[in-house]
């Protein structure tokens, strides 16, 4: 198979991934790594580099579309980024020293957890009572626009959320993924923020976290132009089409189907990692 054919196939696959990712909200980039490593036998370091590029592309593209961030809590996002970026850099460094089989297995496990977590019921947000001391001092409590007007909400467990974000950051830097699901869990279940706020804030944070580890990836030579080019253009194109084609009504059956595909890929990654084929 020539480079031309290889590039075209990658582009089409990335298009589908970007489309499905934007329709299901499950992050289409996660299929890039299994596709590259399992099907095309690309070394996992190139794969995670390519994936990180697609993460930056889709998160910046999405942020440009939803710039009215009256919903996302930017201050909270920035504060938590202190934890996430530190973790991301640690994770990126780890990626050089962990054997590739280990990275593959970890990737599979995280993929399963993320897919399952995306179906977890949302926790109830805290809108009454007193604010936590830390949250008030850092001015993290905010309001979100609702049909009734601006509803205030409180942020709890700042320390717990901070710690969880650090872990999400490490995973992000190690595997080249966005770990949006983990970020949402940290904000939704630990910090008890309204679900819409946590998803939009997570989207904001993903780009920042990715920018943190990309420097290390670049220096170590993980980012290859021949792979990044079709994948970046593909996921951007697919996501663009996705936002145009369907209104915000996310079909649940599509999400379940995509989650199943992710689960199968995750198991394959783990299996290949264990049998040293990766």
């Amino acid at each position: 198979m020539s480079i031309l054919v290889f590039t075209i196939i990658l582009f089409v696959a990335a298009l589908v991934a970007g489309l499905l990712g934007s329709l299901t909200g499950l992050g289409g980039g996660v299929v890039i790594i299994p596709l590259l490593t399992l099907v095309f036998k690309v070394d996992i370091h190139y794969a995670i580099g390519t994936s990180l590029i697609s993460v930056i592309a889709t998160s910046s593209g999405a942020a440009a579309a939803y710039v009215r961030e009256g919903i996302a809590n930017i201050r909270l996002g920035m504060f938590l980024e202190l934890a996430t970026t530190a973790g991301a850099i640690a994770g990126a460094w780890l990626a050089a020293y962990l054997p590739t089989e280990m990275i593959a297995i970890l990737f599979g496990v995280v993929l399963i957890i993320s897919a399952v977590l995306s179906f977890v019921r949302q926790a109830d947000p805290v809108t009454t009572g007193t604010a936590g001391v830390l949250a008030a001092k850092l001015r993290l409590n905010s309001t979100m626009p609702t049909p009734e007007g601006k509803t205030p909400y409180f942020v709890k467990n700042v320390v717990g959320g901070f710690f969880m974000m650090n872990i999400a950051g490490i995973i992000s830097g190690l595997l080249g993924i966005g770990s949006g699901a983990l970020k949402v869990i940290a904000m939704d279940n630990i910090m008890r923020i309204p679900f819409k706020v946590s998803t939009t804030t997570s989207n904001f944070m993903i780009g920042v976290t990715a920018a943190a580890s990309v420097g290390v990836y670049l220096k170590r030579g993980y980012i290859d132009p021949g792979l990044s080019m079709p994948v970046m253009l593909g996921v951007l194109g697919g996501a663009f089409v996705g936002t145009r084609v369907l209104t915000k009504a996310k079909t649940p059956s599509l999400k379940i189907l995509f989650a199943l595909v992710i689960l199968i890929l995750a198991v394959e990654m783990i299996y290949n990692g264990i049998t040293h084929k990766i």
Partner: protein
Amino acid sequence: MEQKRKRLQDTDMENVIGYLLRYGVLSASVVVLAGGIVYLYRHGHQLPAYSQFRGEPDKMRNPRLIWQAVLRGEGRPLIQLGLLILIATPIARIAFSIFGYLLEKDYLYTVLTAIVLLVILWNF
């Protein structure tokens, strides 16, 4: 009066950030596409070799070498240039919000965001 002026600054900030992101991603895509066309024209018939990790050569990693290679008309360095523009986009966004917090006289978050930016830049 004070309230109204602050709200104006917020939406102004959001607009600029929106433009920044949009044009950043767009220009990055154009450059990457151009580089891709050159790359495929020159190397499309060759075989891909990604099974073993060897790390990218210096001219694909060092910004100065990338630029020199671009001026020579090479495809892959042009793609890398586009990727650098893509990477610069969220970073520029963060830098801009530092400015925004400064304008809002929110010094805590000016410093906080500056720390995040420094951490990111330190790794390049």
